[in-house]
C-alpha cells in the first residue's frame, strides 16, 4: 500500500492537524484549493532556469512559465576563456530545448509590466500572465550612464563592458585580436558590489595569457574602483607575478568617471589613460525588471532585499528575487544564483502546499578562476542561514592561493555540470 502526501492528509485528520499547526506561513499565499498553482519565472539564466526546473522537480503539480527574451543561454562564467581564445562562443552557448521536457512553459518575450496587487505580468508581445508566485532572476543592469561619454563611445564600438556574455564578448575578442603588438588594453573594475567579484582579475590573467602568446610587447592597465583586489587576492597576485610579470599595471582606487571614444582615453580622479582597446565595466544594480515589481528596495534603491529562507521580497509579497539582483553577503556568482534558485524553489513548493519552508537552509559557493590557459584556482564556502544573522560563512572554507592544472580541469567540468543541471 502506498499513500502520497495528499492521501495521507485526507485520511489522517488528527495527524494532519498537528502537522499543519506548525506551518503558518509568514506569507499571504495559501494552498491553491482549485486548479494548479502557477509560478512565473522571469529570466532563464543560472537562477531562473534552475528555479523553474527544480520547482517542477519538487512540485510536479505546479505549473511553471519561464519568460526569457533570448533564444539561447550564454554563460558569463568561462566567457573570459573565450576572450583568451581558449574556448569559442559555441562552447559557452547552450540551448533551452530540454526545459519544456520538464513541463516548463517557455515564453520568448520581454516583460514590460508587473502588477503585484493583481499578480499579473505583462509582456512586450501583449500577453498578460497571472501568477500565484513570481520569481525574478534578471541579473544586473549595467549603469553605463554613470560614466560620462560611455553611451556614445559604446554606440561607436569604442568601449565595451562584456559583463553580459554575448555580442560584446565577441566584439572584445575581435578588438584584442586586431590590437597591434605593443598595444595597451585598459580595463576597469567597478566598486563593489558588482557581478562576479573575481571576474575582472581573471580577465586580466587571461588577456595577459593571450598577449603573452600572440603579442608579447602589449600591456594591461587595470583601473580598480576598489581599494584593493576585491576577490582571491593571493591567487591573482601569485598569477600576475608568476606568469605575467611586468604586463599588468594595477591601479587601485581608480574608478573611471569618463570615457572618450575618439581620443580612446579613460579618465579617473587620478589618471587619464590612453588605450588601444577599452573595456570599462560600469557599476551595476538589480536588473530592470525588479524596478517594474517595485522590489529594488535597499537604501540606495539599487538592490533587492529578501527573506533568505524563501528569497521572497521583504516588501512585496509573492515576489521572489534570485541571483545578482539580491542584496546579501553571498557572492554575486552564477553558482550562488543556482543555490538561491534551489532554496527558493523548495520554499515556493512548500508555501504553495501550505507548509512551512526550511527556516535554516544551507548553501555553498564554488567558484573557479582561470589563472592561465592551463591553471586555475577556486574559492569554496558553505553558508548556513541563521534566522538572526543571515547567511553565516562556515569554518573551513576559503580560496586557494595558487593555480593548479587539476583545478583548470575541474573548472571546465564545473561549467559542463552546472549548465547541465540548469538546462538538461
Amino acid at each position, binding site marked *: 500500500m502506498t499513500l502520497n502526501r495528499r492521501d495521507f492528509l485526507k485520511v489522517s485528520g488528527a495527524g494532519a492537524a498537528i502537522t499543519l499547526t506548525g506551518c503558518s506561513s509568514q506569507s499571504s499565499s495559501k494552498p491553491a484549493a482549485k486548479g494548479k498553482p502557477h509560478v512565473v519565472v522571469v529570466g532563464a539564466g543560472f537562477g531562473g532556469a534552475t528555479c523553474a526546473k527544480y520547482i517542477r522537480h519538487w512540485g510536479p503539480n505546479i505549473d511553471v512559465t519561464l519568460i526569457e527574451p533570448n533564444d539561447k543561454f550564454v554563460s558569463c562564467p568561462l566567457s573570459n576563456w573565450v576572450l583568451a581564445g581558449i574556448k569559442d562562443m559555441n562552447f559557452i552557448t547552450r540551448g533551452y530545448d530540454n526545459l519544456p521536457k520538464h513541463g516548463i512553459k517557455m515564453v520568448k518575450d520581454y516583460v514590460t509590466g508587473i502588477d503585484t496587487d493583481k499578480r499579473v505580468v505583462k509582456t512586450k508581445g501583449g500577453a498578460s500572465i497571472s501568477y500565484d508566485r513570481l520569481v525574478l532572476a534578471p541579473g544586473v543592469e549595467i549603469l553605463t550612464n554613470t560614466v560620462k561619454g560611455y553611451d556614445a563611445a559604446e554606440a561607436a564600438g569604442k568601449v565595451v563592458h562584456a559583463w553580459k556574455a554575448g555580442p560584446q564578448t565577441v566584439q572584445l575578442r575581435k578588438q584584442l585580436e586586431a590590437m597591434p603588438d605593443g598595444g595597451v588594453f585598459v580595463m576597469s573594475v567597478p566598486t563593489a558590489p558588482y557581478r562576479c567579484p573575481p571576474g575582472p582579475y581573471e580577465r586580466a590573467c587571461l588577456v595577459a595569457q593571450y598577449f603573452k602568446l600572440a603579442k608579447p610587447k602589449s600591456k594591461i592597465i587595470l583601473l580598480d574602483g576598489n581599494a584593493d583586489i576585491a576577490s582571491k587576492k593571493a591567487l591573482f597576485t601569485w598569477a600576475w607575478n608568476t606568469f605575467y610579470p611586468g604586463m599588468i599595471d594595477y591601479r587601485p582606487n581608480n574608478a573611471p568617471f569618463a570615457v572618450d571614444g575618439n581620443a580612446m582615453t579613460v579618465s579617473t580622479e587620478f589618471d587619464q589613460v590612453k588605450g588601444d582597446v577599452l573595456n570599462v565595466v560600469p557599476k551595476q544594480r538589480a536588473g530592470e525588471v525588479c524596478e517594474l515589481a517595485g522590489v529594488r528596495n535597499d537604501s540606495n534603491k539599487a538592490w533587492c532585499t529578501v527573506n533568505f529562507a524563501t528569497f521572497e521580497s521583504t516588501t512585496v509579497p509573492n515576489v521572489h528575487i534570485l541571483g545578482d539582483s539580491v542584496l546579501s553577503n553571498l557572492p554575486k556568482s552564477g553558482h550562488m544564483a543556482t543555490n538561491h534558485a534551489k532554496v527558493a524553489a523548495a520554499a515556493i513548493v*512548500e508555501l504553495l502546499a501550505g507548509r512551512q519552508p526550511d527556516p535554516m537552509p*544551507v548553501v555553498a559557493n564554488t567558484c573557479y578562476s582561470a589563472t592561465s590557459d592551463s591553471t586555475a584556482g*577556486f574559492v569554496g564556502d558553505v553558508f548556513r542561514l541563521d534566522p538572526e544573522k543571515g547567511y553565516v560563512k*562556515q569554518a573551513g572554507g576559503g580560496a586557494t592561493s595558487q593555480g593548479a592544472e587539476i583545478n583548470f580541469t*575541474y573548472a571546465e567540468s*564545473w561549467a559542463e555540470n552546472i549548465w547541465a543541471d540548469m538546462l538538461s
Partner: protein
Amino acid sequence: MYNKKTTLALAGFVGLALSGIAGAADMHTQVIAATCMSCHGPGGNSVGAAPGIAGISQDRFVKAMQDYKTGKRPGTVMLKLAGGYTDAEIEAMGAYFATLK
C-alpha cells in the same frame, strides 16, 4: 471507513510519513543535495571530469565527507566545503544519494 487493521497500518505510516511530510527536515537534505549537483551533475550524474555521486553507498559517501573534513583524504574544493556540513546532514545526504541512479 477504516477497520482496525487499516487504522493500525495507517498509524504506522503516520510515523514514517511525518519525517517526510514535515517538509523542513526532508527538504533541507534535498536542497543541500541539489547544491552538490552544480558540480557533480544533474541527479548526481557528472557530465564532466568531476566524479558522479549518484548511487554510491551511504557508508562510502559519509567516509569520504568525514575524511575531507579532517583532511585525511586528499582533494581540492571538497576540502573547503566538507567542514560546512553537520554529521547529521552528511548522513542524510549519503542516504539520499544512495537512492539515486
